[in-house]
């Protein structure tokens, strides 16, 4: 596969390491819950539950053998067609993450 890196252009996916669903960006704040159980519920859903769609999938790839950018790649899991590639850092900020 070829991932069209937003900064470097087309690169062989072999240079990247795959993590999984881009929802892993949306990490809950473990201290923001009324009880430890509630925090565990939220963290459990975050870490273990997956939509795993047959079709469009937003997912995290790390350019390990390249510039070490984490990317959010929008890819069809049935055809492998890639329709969008973004820097994960930008996506994280768009989702309201900061420090």
């Amino acid at each position, binding site marked *: 596969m070829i991932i069209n890196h937003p900064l470097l252009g087309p690169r062989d996916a072999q240079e990247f390491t795959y*993590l999984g669903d881009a929802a892993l960006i949306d990490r809950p704040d473990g201290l923001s819950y009324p009880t430890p159980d509630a925090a565990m519920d939220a963290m459990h859903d975050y870490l273990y539950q997956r939509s795993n769609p047959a079709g469009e999938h937003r997912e995290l790839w790390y350019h390990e053998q390249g510039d070490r950018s984490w990317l959010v790649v929008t890819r069809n899991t049935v055809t492998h067609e890639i329709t969008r590639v973004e820097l994960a850092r930008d996506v994280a900020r768009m989702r309201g993450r900061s420090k």
Partner: protein
Amino acid sequence: MRYSGFRVIREALTGHKGWGPAWRDATPQASYDYIIVGGGGHGLATAYYLAKEFKQARIAVVEKGWIGGGNVGRNTTIIRSNYLLDGNEPFYEFSLKLWEGLEQDFNYNAMVSQRGIINLFHTDAQRDAYTRRGNAMILHGADAELLNRDQVRAMYPFLNFDNARFPIKGALMQRRGGTVRHDAVAWGYARGASDRGVDIIQNCEVTGFRREGGRVTGIETSRGFIGAKKIGVAVAGSSSKVMAAADMRLPMESHVLQAFVSEGLKPVIDGVMTYGAGHFYVSQSDKGGLVFGGDIDGYNSYAQRGNMPVVEDVAEGGMSLMPMIGRARLLRSWGGIMDMSMDGSPIIDKTDIDGLYFNGGWCYGGFKATPASGWCFAHLLATGNPHPTATAYRFDRFRKGLMIDEKGQGAQPNLH
């Protein structure tokens, strides 16, 4: 119709006119007591044991395409019970015992062949881990041996012992491990189930579950609604898709695993071998092809095909382990979809919806599990309780911190 050597001879002399269909092609009835969604190995085995061992009736298996067309028809045919953890080992040993009696049980020669499996190790840490595992296996009543380098060499002299980047130091061996003719497993279960009155319905795709007050009452299919008291889903490769129709998210991702077969060769590799320093495992089929594979491609996929990096990675492992295969030719590659769970172990459990049961998340260990998976799923469906060897395969183990993580990779499906 019972198969036997005499029968084969008689048919041969009379032009094979007497052979009937191996299984009936059934058309859906209005309703059943049990519907098994998925006509793969696990689904067919479930129906077979429901009828034969748990004396249940009014059972149907519905299959989207043709039976045995999923991973049971597309794998590297290995059976073994060389697991480490308490949650797994009893189940896989139960499965191996079922394999050992399978052909006589369902009167079909699936060519269960216990020619032994060895896991090579190349470091002291791997040796320690295999020692721990071998002991765990024996504690669970399985067989295990630790071979030293010379014992491995005597067994497979053509391995790379003298010019290796990662020298072979020994191996964990399970003599009762081996291979099975994978397609025949599906056909044998289908035939056995069909003979016991199970309706096998091909080309019937499930499009939804009908629910009334928190319990399932049947399935919507491409061939209309079919009612059911209990529904068991065993659709490896499509688990998330099918369960989404019941509004469930699963702790798993679907990944593609490629596997390969070489041209037919005279016998050279007797048993099954896994390489401890690369992603490569191999056996040789009765037909002569080297059947081998390695790692999954590593990204979510339903495409049933992979890409070159893994093909090359596997070949590099093979060439570094047994440089003689440089002149053997790869004949065919294929890709199957693995439901990779979050700890690398499966789920056989009730769902929160009454009457709906789930069997999946087998990663790439599903084939060897087929008999026990069918038996244990049938047990759960028929009795409502998990089979003693499958009590750990629960949905809530992740929430409770009771993961069954053989590889110690954590919630990273593509590393299991």
